[in-house]
């Protein structure tokens, strides 16, 4: 019972938060249309990424639409081509606010691939 109450509380908290505009600055990158509804993405992007990761790595089923590289390509800042370089960078700002720590970018490039290729072309 206590568990359910707790769960409800959590849910409410999320809903309230999702309903507001974000209480911090977020550089959404180049803009356009997200791969799914932004409202849905806000809550479920981690599931999407983890599903995609297992499909791509273990089965070789690469859906480029929802590849992490595609997220970075679009969401990287137009100022520095990165999703992790600054406090308001796309994959940093919310997580910092929510105290979520990602290890993804210890391996994955946080830089827009098109920019990385250009920079490393020489």
């Amino acid at each position, binding site marked *: 019972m206590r568990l359910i109450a707790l769960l409800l509380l959590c849910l409410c908290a999320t809903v309230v938060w999702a309903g507001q505009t974000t209480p911090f600055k977020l550089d959404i990158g180049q803009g356009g249309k997200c791969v799914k509804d932004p409202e849905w993405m806000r809550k479920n992007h981690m599931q999407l990424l983890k599903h995609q990761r297992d499909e791509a*790595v*273990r089965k*070789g*089923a690469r859906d*480029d639409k929802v590849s992490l590289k595609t997220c970075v390509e679009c969401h990287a800042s137009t100022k520095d081509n990165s999703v992790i370089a600054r406090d308001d960078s796309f994959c940093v700002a919310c997580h910092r606010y929510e105290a979520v720590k990602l290890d993804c970018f210890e*391996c994955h*490039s946080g*830089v827009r*691939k098109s920019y*990385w290729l250009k920079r490393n072309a020489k």
Partner: protein
Amino acid sequence: MSEVNNQRRAFLKTSLGAAAVAIAPGMLLFDMAHGSTEPVSGKVRWGMLIDTNQCKPGCDECVTACNTENGLSGGKLPTDSQWIRKIEIKDISTGRQSSLPMMCQHCEHPPCVDVCPTAASFKRADGIVLVDKHRCIGCRYCMMACPYKARSFVHEPLHDQNPDVPRGKGTVESCTLCVHRIDEGLQPACATSCPNKAILFGDLNDPNSPIAQKLRTVASTQVRADLKLNTGIRYQGL
């Protein structure tokens, strides 16, 4: 193993249509594989035939190409990652010398997969042996199990990796056959870089592929064939 075989059978049953496209002669599956959202096919088995007669001592173009493609430093310290390395061998009784590249042999029965406690080491349906770095805990059992010393451990934090080749501290890594290139219809970097075309890459299972045809006509060996791992990398002229 049996799990993989079952998958293969299931695949055969359910997708004969796709398989027919896949084995169209000479296509090397490349066009079909491009940007595919479908899982890779168990009908395919990627492999290489390395002609050691064409492999020149002192040449390390394949190593350099691998390092550039995958973002390896190229350092030679015991703690530096090496996915492919050149070996010079000599038959002491005859004095005959040969030179060859050594890397992950992409075994059909990979010991690294057997020993992995987290199922991070795995074999993809198309025969490529990989580390799922999301599951790797860095225990390095696989490095000890590998008879080819093909794997490396990342000891230091890395920066500015190739977006196509994520790598990071605390995980084991090895030759991926350039899986990111294969899935785009390209050949592994080492194969395209060899000035003497000593590395022939292709589908071992497709009887019409150049590699299968060559394997039918020339004598080839598997390194440590006694271990019965059925490697995907074969050598000619050893």
